[in-house]
């Protein structure tokens, strides 16, 4: 069972290289990407079934070097759930980019290799069991996403690119310094090994290096005081690629944050500072979204707000909180990508995402209206949807934590749910109600709509399989916290 775990990283890498060789064969190139991504998805689902049947986690020492030394891959519930969802989103985006997005980008030979590199990097970031490989994986996703951003950004690409590069390059160097700090204090960078050796290190440098790691990964995740690079860059992407960025990139940071913070025991149960950060992220993100009048911008600000929910689960730092965070990441990646794909279809039809220039889509395109309505309800968390399952598990955990800080954050989470509804209503009123007034009126024939329906169906599966998923996520939280769990 364990042999094919490295393939989940190597296959997209190889497909990316193959895509470069197939520069003159666009159809074959696209088919290769689809097959590879579907294979990664199937591999993760098989792993997930294997794990949920009692294995708990699968650890692989690559190159047969015994764990504290070599590169260890850990396919635990966090990695497989998030990895499977990442593959599903990539699949949907691949389907959508075949027929839409700017034509010169669609036919560009570098698009498919970069998408595959992005997938490989994020898979490695989810699966890796040591800090330095995490750094390498983050660099791989950073470089591939930057090249894609440089190529695909509309309007003025320099401002978003500088914001993205400046922030991320500084963060990468600090991350490397933090890794060096961890190594000099403990003599290891393997996370499982660190869980034992870290508490024996002296307290003062531990606080410094641990804090540095939290800040670095917090920037990557888009946490409260340091998220401004995110809404500055994501809206400049064509929404069809924005779907991939919103789903994959910040979640690499969130998943790494969950893994590192639990391995090094960087928080209390519950942690007042992290609760404050999480509440601020939720609130500032949703307030920023309310202030926008462009669908792409609204959705990008919502990414920030939703990261706050995941941090809320982390800040509780107990079984229920972390399990809720894992479910929330899965739900969020699917629904956010689906919403961005809807935005892509709207832009394909009307040529704009400005609410002022849109209207009456519910009358002219009822199918799109249903799609957006259902996706928005899932994002808000109306009962049968996966948003309800994910938010319920977090709110439940927040109340069970029992401290005043956790209760306040739970209240903020509920309030932010309400404000999310408000800004989704804003899109609904602006784009779907009223008189049709699009300047351009092209038929929506893009594959983004079926792709978004597919992702929506996947969120349906998340809520249908809510029970088993909650059990697996709980096992994942046990493994993260290092209590109980299967061997």
């Amino acid at each position, binding site marked *: 069972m364990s042999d094919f775990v490295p393939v989940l990283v190597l296959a997209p890498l190889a497909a990316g290289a193959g895509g470069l060789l197939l520069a003159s064969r666009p159809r074959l190139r696209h088919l290769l990407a689809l097959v590879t991504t579907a294979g990664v998805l199937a591999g993760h689902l098989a792993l997930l079934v294997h794990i949920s049947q009692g294995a708990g986690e699968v650890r692989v020492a690559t190159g047969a070097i015994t764990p504290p030394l070599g590169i260890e891959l850990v396919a635990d519930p966090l990695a497989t759930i998030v990895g499977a969802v990442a593959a599903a989103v990539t699949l949907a985006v691949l389907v959508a980019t075949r027929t839409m997005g700017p034509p010169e980008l669609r036919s560009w030979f570098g698009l498919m290799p970069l998408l595959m590199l992005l997938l490989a990097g994020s898979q490695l970031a989810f699966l890796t069991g040591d800090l330095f490989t995490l750094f390498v994986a983050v660099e791989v996703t950073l470089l591939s996403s930057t090249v894609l951003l440089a190529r695909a950004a509309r309007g003025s690409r320099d401002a978003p690119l500088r914001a993205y590069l400046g922030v991320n390059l500084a963060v990468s160097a600090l991350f490397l310094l933090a890794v*060096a700090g961890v190594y000099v204090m403990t003599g290891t960078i393997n996370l499982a090994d660190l869980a034992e050796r870290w508490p024996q290190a002296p307290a003062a440098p531990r606080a410094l290096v641990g804090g540095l790691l939290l800040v670095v990964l917090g920037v990557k995740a888009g946490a409260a005081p340091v998220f401004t690079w995110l809404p500055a860059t994501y809206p400049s992407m064509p929404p069809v690629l924005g779907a991939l960025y919103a789903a994959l990139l910040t979640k690499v940071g969130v998943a790494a944050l969950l893994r590192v913070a639990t391995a090094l025991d960087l928080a209390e149960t519950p942690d007042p500072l992290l609760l404050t950060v999480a509440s601020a992220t939720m609130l500032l993100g949703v307030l920023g979204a309310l202030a926008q009048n462009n669908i792409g911008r609204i959705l990008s600000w919502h990414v920030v707000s939703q990261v706050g929910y995941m941090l809320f689960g982390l800040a509780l730092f107990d079984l229920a909180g972390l399990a809720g965070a894992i479910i929330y990441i899965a739900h969020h990646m699917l629904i956010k990508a689906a919403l961005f794909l809807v935005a892509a279809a709207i832009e394909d039809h009307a040529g704009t995402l*400005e609410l002022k220039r849109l209207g009456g889509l519910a009358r002219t395109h009822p199918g799109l209206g249903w799609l957006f309505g259902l996706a928005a309800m899932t994002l808000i968390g109306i009962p049968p949807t996966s948003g309800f399952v994910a938010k319920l598990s977090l709110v439940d955990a927040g109340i069970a934590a029992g401290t005043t800080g956790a209760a306040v954050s739970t209240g903020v989470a509920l309030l932010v749910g309400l404000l999310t509804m408000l800004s989704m209503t804003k899109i609904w009123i602006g784009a779907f109600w009223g008189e049709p007034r699009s300047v351009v009126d092209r038929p929506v024939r893009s594959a983004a709509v079926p792709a978004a329906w597919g992702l929506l169906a996947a969120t349906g599966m998340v809520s249908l399989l809510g029970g088993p998923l909650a059990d697996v996520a709980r096992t994942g939280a046990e493994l993260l916290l290092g209590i109980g769990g299967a061997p």
Partner: protein
Amino acid sequence: MIFVVLISVLVAVGVYLLLDDDPVRLIIGAGLLGHGAVLGLLTVMREGRPPLVGAGEGTFADPLPQALALTAIVISFGVTAFLLAFARSTVDDAPGRSAVEPVDGIDSASDPTRESAEMAASLSPEAAAGAGSRRHPEHGDEQASA
């Protein structure tokens, strides 16, 4: 101690340069910052004989930080190559500018023209006009939020 001072200076200067708008400074800043981090990795190394079988007696030097530093150097090499290509394309995109001139304010000079040409190719004429006028406030907004 000398390493600590050196790393601090490299990181401080690197961060300072990263804060600038100029792509060339961005590249130099990223390079310096990367060097600071790599030096940080090397200073944590345990010293000793070469880590080879049969290369003498006693404790051998810790090979892991060397491997990490090497990987980090390769990555920063790749990043620098990409940044240079990016800076070059920024300069090339600007009409009537040579590669040695400073590139401040280039985006407002180059992109709207290219953008509207693309839009005109894919949309109807009045839409292209509308889209062209729409870009400017959006651009200003981005500058503000960045």
